[in-house]
């Protein structure tokens, strides 16, 4: 077929640099250590649906890049996904699957199912062999009931009644393991999720700031952004800060006159014309 349209650029990961990296390693150049991005994300199943929770700190190594970012991503009106790992990877992969789910909804005329989102995510992650660093907690309520899954960067998944991921996952899991039981009510579920996230916020350096919660039940989703704010900014002086001259001790003074490089030209009438 002699189509004159531009072929869409083949997307996806270019593995060219991997051969370069191998060559560098062979020549003794060390790989820089991976940046652990830090997060606490959790999910649990309660009697009427699922509750998802996440902290709101985004880190770049030892620096907090975003104090109040959104880690609970929209997949479908009845499915949400928390993302840990590289922020760009989680954003891109959840946006992409969300778009695919929308197209699928138009084609089938039905509400999306959690297993559909799960399969789309895991096949994508598997095909990138773990290079897409997205660790996700996927939860939702569809015609077959409430579902909660975890997805690992290499593409494996688990189906669980309660789950935690991210650098704060151990802190959060300790809360779940001691307090989770089947048949929690909505209020109990939200409280338990908030407690687990707070455990991550206070005990893990990679997690912090606020608690986001998302409750998904039959026919209704509530996204409780900043459900708890346990880290308010304190010690803000309302008068502001002023730095009076003389407050800082002057240790030494050196004045260097700047030599003019350009000689001042005699003012001519050139511009007057």
């Amino acid at each position: 077929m002699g189509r004159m349209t531009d072929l869409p650029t083949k997307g996806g990961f270019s593995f060219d640099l991997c051969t370069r990296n191998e060559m560098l390693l062979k020549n003794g150049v060390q790989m820089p250590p991976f940046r652990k991005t830090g997060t606490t994300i959790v999910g649990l199943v309660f009697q009427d649906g699922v509750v998802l929770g996440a902290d709101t700190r985004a880190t770049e190594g030892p620096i907090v890049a975003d104090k109040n970012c959104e880690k609970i991503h929209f997949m479908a009106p009845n499915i949400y996904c928390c993302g840990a790992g590289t922020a760009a990877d989680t954003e891109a992969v959840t946006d992409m699957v969300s778009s695919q789910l929308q197209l699928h909804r138009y084609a089938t005329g039905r509400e999306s199912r959690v297993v559909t989102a799960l399969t789309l995510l895991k096949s994508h992650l598997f095909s990138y062999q773990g290079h897409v660093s997205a660790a996700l907690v996927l939860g939702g309520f569809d015609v077959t009931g409430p579902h909660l899954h975890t997805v690992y960067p290499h593409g494996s998944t688990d189906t669980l009644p309660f789950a935690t991921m991210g650098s704060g996952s151990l802190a959060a899991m300790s809360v779940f393991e001691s307090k989770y039981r089947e048949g929690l009510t909505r209020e109990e579920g939200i409280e338990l999720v908030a407690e687990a996230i707070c455990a991550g916020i206070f005990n893990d350096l990679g997690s912090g700031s606020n608690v986001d919660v998302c409750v998904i039940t039959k026919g209704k989703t509530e996204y409780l952004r900043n459900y708890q704010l346990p880290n308010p900014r304190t010690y803000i002086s309302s008068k502001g800060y002023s730095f009076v001259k003389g407050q800082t001790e002057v240790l030494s003074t050196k004045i260097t006159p700047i030599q003019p490089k350009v000689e001042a030209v005699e003012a001519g009438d050139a511009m007057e014309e």
Partner: protein
Amino acid sequence: MGDSQYSFSLTTFSPSGKLVQIEHALQAVGSGQTSLGIKAANGVVVATEKKLPSILVDETSVQKIQLMTPNIGVVYSGMGPDSRVLVRKSRKQAQQYFRLYKEAIPVTQLVRETAAVMQEFTQSGGVRPFGVSLLIAGYDDNGPQLYQVDPSGSYFSWKASAMGKNVSNAKTFLEKRYTEDMELEDAIHTAILTLKEGFEGQISGKNIEIGIISADRKFRVLSSSEIDDYLAEVE
């Protein structure tokens, strides 16, 4: 007419400057079932006949009016399968637009992209033009909009338009009945009356289809019982 020698090759102009295949495609549209659209002050309505080839066909399985995005819908006259292909491509393009700009695609942009696809198929080797004209109805920040896209890829914005078998009668009827400040409810009644004009047989909720979008920006196809209610009002 010297045109007939040029009528089979899509990518060759005839001496009179026409692409005869596109003329033939418009013929295919003209013999399709009537469809129409009306832009009201606070929304858009599109409607079409849904004549099925036999009473044995399950009419609930056929839906001619489709959604492209939550706030843009489309109806066609002509070859149903061609319209399905176009709707599929347009849905994908709408998603790609959203992925790129994080903005819901404006109606004009989607119309433009759909028209570009239709035009591609008039200038490529080994393909034929689409045998459908589309009426695209949407509501975005620029208010309610109604566009018609032809097999050639040209598109027009209309206040009210019709396509298919009964097009000239329908358009005359619409010209008489259309007013600038029409409300959506009036537009629905007018759409039904226009369809009724050229309808063979008994009109009912089962053999016409109506899609509406109002200021809530959610395109939806009316159920056959809702259509029956409107028909009762119109009697």
